[in-house]
């Protein structure tokens, strides 16, 4: 293999296969760790609440603040509180947990931001923003896709890059109405070679189109489906309404049969000897 081809192959391997497969197991581990951490939080919170509950029940009811005499209360002394080994362990654990939780949250946030930028990069295979920032609803959609932990194998359609990593990082779901409005307003532009991808993203609404491990779906809303269907039906029916324009006086249009029979009659008009058969057909239908 020539050296140049080998370098290109390595680049493709690094940029598509390795990175995609390296991030996703890491993501799964983090997911597992976060769920364990949450369970630990709940356990410690329950323990702490139980301890507080026990301490509160040891306290006598508080009277008027002016007449409060601390010496009458049976409060444990400060030294005895911190000398309790269980509470000390709890406090240390809580402190450590808070520290690691905040750092892990920061790490999660950084990871989500990275995934968000990846999702936007994948979306740029089809659309390009004409301004310095993306429209807010597109950002919301990509943010939802980056936060959602959709980790599953996929053997679906190939993306425009021609490669399928087999692991879906997220699913970017856009509405056709919003995309169309953004294009009309000039906020978004179709990539010069991406119109076929848009068609695939609309057509493969159930499976979506895969771009660098991200599934992009453009959903045509039901109101658009109704409008287009009504337009088609209207076009189909216009031939039955504008009968006067049909034949320009070439043949005699027989009045008042049903519309469907009228179509049969007009179709059969070039065979005058069969016209009476269709007239009879119209009478039977009526």
């Amino acid at each position: 293999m020539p050296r140049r081809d080998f370098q290109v192959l390595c680049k493709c391997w690094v940029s598509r296969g390795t990175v995609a497969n390296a991030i996703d197991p890491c993501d799964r581990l983090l997911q597992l760790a976060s769920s364990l951490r949450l369970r630990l939080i709940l356990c410690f919170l329950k323990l702490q609440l139980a301890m507080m509950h026990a301490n509160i029940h040891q306290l006598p009811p508080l009277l008027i603040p002016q007449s409060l005499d601390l010496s009458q209360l049976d409060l444990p002394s400060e030294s005895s509180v911190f000398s309790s080994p269980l509470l000390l362990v709890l406090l240390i654990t809580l402190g450590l947990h808070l520290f690691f939780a905040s750092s892990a949250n920061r790490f999660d946030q950084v990871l989500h931001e990275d995934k968000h930028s990846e999702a936007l990069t994948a979306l740029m295979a089809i659309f390009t923003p004409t301004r310095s920032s993306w429209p807010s609803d597109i950002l919301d959609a990509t943010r939802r896709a980056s936060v959602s932990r959709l980790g599953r194998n996929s053997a679906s359609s190939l993306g425009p890059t021609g490669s399928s990593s087999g692991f879906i990082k997220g699913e970017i779901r856009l509405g056709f109405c919003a995309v169309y409005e953004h294009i009309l307003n000039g906020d978004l532009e179709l990539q010069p070679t991406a119109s076929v991808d848009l068609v695939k993203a609309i057509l493969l609404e159930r499976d979506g189109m895969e771009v660098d491990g991200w599934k992009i779906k453009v959903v045509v809303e039901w109101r658009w489906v109704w409008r287009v269907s009504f337009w088609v039906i209207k076009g189909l029916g216009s031939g039955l309404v504008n009968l006067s324009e049909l034949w320009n006086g070439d043949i005699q249009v027989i009045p008042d049969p049903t519309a469907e029979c009228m179509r049969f009659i007009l179709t059969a008009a070039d065979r005058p000897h069969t016209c009476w058969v269709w007239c009879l057909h119209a009478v039977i239908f009526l």
Partner: protein
Amino acid sequence: MVSSCRHLPLISHTSLNSDLTERSRVSAPCLTYALDLLPLHRHDQFARQLYRALRSRRSSSSDHNGGDGGGEAQATVTFSTISAPLVLLSTITLCGLPFFLRTPPAEPTPVLLGLRRAVKSLSSVAVGPRTAREEGRLVVVSVEDSSETYAGVLVETIKRMEGDADFRQRLVDEVGVRGWRRGMFCVELEAALYKAGLMKRWEVLVGVS
């Protein structure tokens, strides 16, 4: 075939009679008509008028040639059809969108028309009482799938709409900036449908027997 005679989408929609009359005056070797702009119920009327136009053209050319009667009278009729193997509501919606989104919406002829129906309506010119003395009919000479060529024409149209400053300014003056963007989006979507194989473009060469 004269490429300038092609109907491009988004360009002005003239009526059938004036269109036929105007095009018949053109002394081109082969005329080109687009069925997409016509409502479905006027296709038979179109075939009839096309037959008359070609017949008069042949007779005039035979007179011009000294009455040998061998004048070549042929025309190309182009139209689009859905070519998906399974036509579902989603396919109809997707294929109808580039025609529906235009202002005013175009006719849904490409969604409703099929190759068999179009060839049948072209090859069976009805002879009514007024045309009973006319003999002959339209004959389909050839049917050609020109989807790739037409997609290329649409892509060139997009480039022209975007890159040609005079053409762009004329369109913006006529339909506004949103209308210009809408037109570009419709043409891009239509070209993508041909490229993706969801729609087919047919060129039918017809003559007079």
